[in-house]
Structure formats: C-alpha cells, structure tokens
C-alpha cells in the first residue's frame, strides 16, 4: 500500500472539512448555553430540554417517524418483489423498460416527483395528509430497495430454490424458508435506507403534505425562516444522529453479507 503523501493528506483534510465542518458546528452549537447561535456561551444541554417542551416539534417528529416507518416497510416489500422479478425472470419482454422505470426515481429531480404526485392527488381529489406523504415516500424509496435486493440476488444460487422445490417445498414456502432468510440482510439494509431517506426528505413532503402532517424537516425549514435558534440545532443534531446510525447499520449489514458470500464461494 502506498503511504499517504502530504498532498493527499491535505486534500483529504480539505475535502472532509468541506463536508463536515458545517455539521460539526451545528452539533457544537446545539450544546451552546447562549441564545445567540453564533456566540459560544459555555456548554449546556438546555436546548434539548427546551425541545421536549415544544409541542410543534414533537408533533412533527411523531409524524415523520410514522411516515418513515410505514413507507419504508411498504417500499421494502414492493422493492424486494421488483428486485426479485428483475433477477429471477431473465429476459422477459419489456425488461429494459421495467428496470428503467424502477430506477427512474433515483435520478428524477425531487421537485418533479413532488409536483407530479401532488397533481395526481389533486386530480384524484385525495385529501392531502399523512397518507399522501407516505404514498409519495413509498414511490421514491422503493427503487433503492429494489437496487439493493437485486444486487444481492445476482450472487444467489438458483439451485437453492430448485433444491427446496425438489424436496417437496411449495414455491411460496420456498421463498419464505430459503430465499428470504438468505437475502434478509439486503432486505434489512434496504429498509434502513428507505427509512432514512423518508426521514430527511423535505421537498417531496412539502408538496404532498397537508394540514396536520408537517414532517420534521418541514418544521425545521419553517422555523429557520424565522431565524436560526439553538433549538433547531438541537433537533437537527438528533436527526443527524438517527440518520448516521441508519446508514452505518445498513452498510455494516451489507459488508457482513458480502463477507459471507465470499466465504461460501471459497469453500
């Protein structure tokens, strides 16, 4: 392995600073005693306590968690099915179109997704609320699950399924007893991924939410427009923590699974 040259270390520091100094500042100032956001007044956790008194933020957090939980669960079910179909059924007619349509939301501007789902809800005269936000989140996070599951399925040995069928297991039971347990890590990391995506989505939620369904990112955004308060720093820090935890868990699961695949291939 090549040693780090001084230039490399410099680039690394500059790059990471660029990415993380704002977040670190945000976290630091969430523990600021002073009411003025940019003036350090000593360490304190009082803004976290204050947060607990803020009914608006608590409501928004609760909405966000509900939406994230339901949408990521449904997106995981649908995304897993889509991922399976794409690997299992080989080259069926319209496969390219189908996979293109699944991946499209990954590259589609969020504004477009938000706007188009809003138009649909209006056209269908569906009252906007938690339900519509959840639907919209399912739509855009499903593709991430599909990608994760598909990549796991590409290294899945189809003869495992055949062996189970051969031993008298019905196709459905085979999926439950054999396929699902083997791809479970991928499914879980897909779920975590869509959970975090739903958690920090602002744009699509703004388009599709209605009264009483303000999500946490929306709440933060509206509070910021009235001026940044240490309270916002505190709630953002919590959000950063949750998302980081989700992403790290997802990648750890993914790595463990990759090692397992390698291990079985070696023996």
């Amino acid at each position, binding site marked *: 392995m090549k040693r780090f040259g001084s230039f490399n270390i410099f680039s690394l520091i500059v790059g990471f600073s660029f990415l993380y100094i704002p977040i670190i500042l945000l976290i630091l100032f969430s523990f600021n005693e002073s009411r003025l956001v940019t003036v350090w007044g000593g360490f304190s956790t009082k803004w976290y306590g204050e947060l607990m008194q803020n009914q608006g933020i608590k409501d928004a957090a609760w909405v966000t968690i509900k939406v994230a939980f339901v949408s990521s669960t449904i997106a995981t079910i649908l995304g897993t099915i889509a991922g399976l179909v794409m690997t299992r059924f080989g080259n069926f007619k319209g496969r390219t179109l189908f996979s293109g349509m699944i991946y499209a939301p990954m590259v589609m501007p969020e504004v477009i997704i938000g706007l188009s789902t809003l138009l649909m809800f209006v056209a269908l005269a569906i009252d906007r609320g938690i339900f519509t936000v959840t639907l919209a989140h399912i739509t855009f996070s499903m593709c991430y699950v599909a990608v994760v599951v598909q990549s796991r399925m590409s290294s899945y040995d189809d003869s495992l399924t055949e062996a189970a069928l*051969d*031993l008298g297991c019905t196709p459905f039971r085979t999926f439950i007893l054999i396929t699902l347990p083997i791809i479970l890590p991928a499914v879980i990391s897909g779920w975590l991924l869509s959970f975090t995506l739903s958690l920090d989505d602002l744009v699509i939620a703004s388009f599709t939410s209605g009264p009483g369904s303000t999500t946490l990112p929306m709440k933060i955004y509206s509070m910021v427009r009235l001026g940044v308060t240490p309270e916002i720093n505190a709630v953002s820090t919590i959000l950063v923590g949750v998302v980081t935890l989700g992403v790290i868990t997802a990648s750890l699961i993914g790595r463990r699974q990759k090692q397992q695949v390698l291990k079985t291939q070696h023996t």
Partner: protein
Amino acid sequence: MSENIQFSPWLDSSQKPYIQIQNVTKRFGEFTAIDNLTLDIYKNEFFSLLGPSGCGKTTLLRMLAGFEKITHGKILLDGEDISEIPPHLRPINMMFQSYALFPHMTVEKNIAFGLKQDNLPSNEIDQRVEEMLELVELTDFANRKPNQLSGGQSQRVALARSLAKRPKLLLLDEPLGALDKRLREQTQFELMDIQEKLEVTFVIVTHDQEEAMTVSSRIGVMDSGNLVQVATPAEIYEAPINKDVADFIGDVNILKGIYKGQNKVGTQLFSEDSNSIVYATQDVGASVEDEMWFAIRPEKLEISKVAPSDDHNILKGTIEDIAYGGSFSTYHVKLDNGRILKAIRANRERTKEHHLTWDDEVYLQWAPHSAVVLLS
C-alpha cells in the same frame, strides 16, 4: 443384490421399464436441446448420461426433475405420466452439481428439510436424519453449517439430503465433479454401495467417462440432443457403435479400411496404414470397396521388437514417445506413413528388463477379434 449377479432387466422383455422417456423434444427458442429422444430405464439401475458439454444431458435430467418443461413428448414414471407435475410434487429427488446446501441451516436441518415438508412426526424425522447421517458418516457434523464443511463432506450432506425422503428415483447432476481425483474414486464406490443398499434407481449425469464406466449398469452416450448408444459400460467400450463413441470413451486407434469381403478368418479389410489386408472376426454387411474404419484399443495392441510368427494384422513403426505410468507404459509408435498409434503395455517386468526404448523399431499386432469394425 448378491443373488442377482446378472443384473440386466433391459434384456428381459417381461420387465416393465420404470422410467419411460417417450419421444421427448425440448427447445429453447430456436435451439433444440433434446431432439425426439426415447429411453427406458429400469428399476434399481445406475444409469449414466454421458456426453460432451452442451449435448443435452443436464437438460434431460432437469426434465426428469421437473425444472424444465417438455416441448413435445412425455415422461412416464412407473407407468404414470409425470410430464405436467411440478417439481415439488414429484416423487423424485435430485442432487445438485453445486450441492445447493441451504447456507443458513445446519447439516441436520438440511437433511430434515425434505421430511419436514411431508409433515412427518418429529420423532420419525429425527430418526431418519440420524440414519442418513450414519449412512454418510457425518454424525459428528450434524450441527455444522455448510460453510464449515469440506468439499467431500458437503457432497455427502447433499447426498444424504436427497436420499432422506427415500425417493424411488434419484437424479445426480455431476455429483463428484467438484472433488479431487482420489476422493472421487472413493466416493464412486460409496455411491454404488448406497445405491445397492437402498435399492434406489440412480440416473447420473457426468462428462467423466471413467466415472460412468465405474458406476453404471448402463450408459447412455449423448451427442447434440440425442442418444448415440445405450449399452453396458463393457459394450460401449468393446463394441462402440461409431467412431465418435469409440473416441469419446477411452483411448483408441482408429484406422481406415476398405472392405474386401469375408474369408475363413473373418472380414477382410485393406488397410492403407499397413499396406496389406487386415482381419476382423466381426461380420459386417457391406459391399466390396466400401470404406469403413476399424478401432483398436491401445491395450489390445501387442508391442514387440521381434517380428511375430504369423503375419496377420501387423503394423511396423518406431517408438516416438513413451509415457511411463508405473503399472503400465503408453508407447506412441510412428508408422512409416507418419501416423502415430498408441499401444499400452503392462509393466510386468521392470522396464530395464524389456528393453523397449525410444527409436526402437517395433511390431504392433492385434488379434482379429480385438478390433471393432465401424461403418461410420
């Protein structure tokens, strides 16, 4: 099966075939993998499907298991048409080339899997799993996961799992392909023992002709979607139906001959290689001047430095190469016209004493009944 030394139900017209493959065709799009194939397999047979890769042998096996749909024709098992029965309802089990052990289950759970699908009482499942573990000598490994097993152990778990349901027919797809040579030979005998002990009909797919010769009651040699010859290993080896079969099974010298008629010694063929008439005892229906071939296995060629006393079936040449194989040596003998023939000689005395070495002028002779005349 000790009382049944001559096991050959295919010669007994009163025997009913156990598996009947009737005019089966399988197409993948434009490609015809199996072309109007008909084959009967009898109870307790150890039947090998042998052929080069892409000959359709695996496709045929997968059709027996139910993983491939038949395009035309049908397959009967014990007189019942199973063509439309999905794999999980067929009383047939298969051992996969990759073994396909369930990685998230222990050895024990893998073996019990099929039995659980039949909703057997748990004490019976335990008992059968125990039996199977004993059969494949893996009792101590019951709680291991597949990734903690060696190749040979995995192979035996796969075998135990596929036998646990006591299928009447077991399909084996290249069962020993992933094992090294020594282990493979040992396992071949184990397979034969198990097959006899449990009285299961085995259909095995292999590309290894030695393996097929060792284990089979009969071999079906396949090529481009059809059976070329179905016979016992000895028949396939000693009386191949054409050049391709002769060449595919074992080593062989194939020489061209022009048919010159019959006399009291046998069939007379003019050989360009010896520039003389050679004899074979086999009768052939042909007309004079027809072109044909005769095949001689290397071990049936007598190699010697001394000219044989009688002058039938002799070729002269020089030793070009010697492959010393311990118990035997293979000599590559170059004829005067440049053709190279292979002759095998058992090293009954130590090599020093028989004085056959490079560039020696030697005579190759074979008995008229040792050569097989091939029309195509």
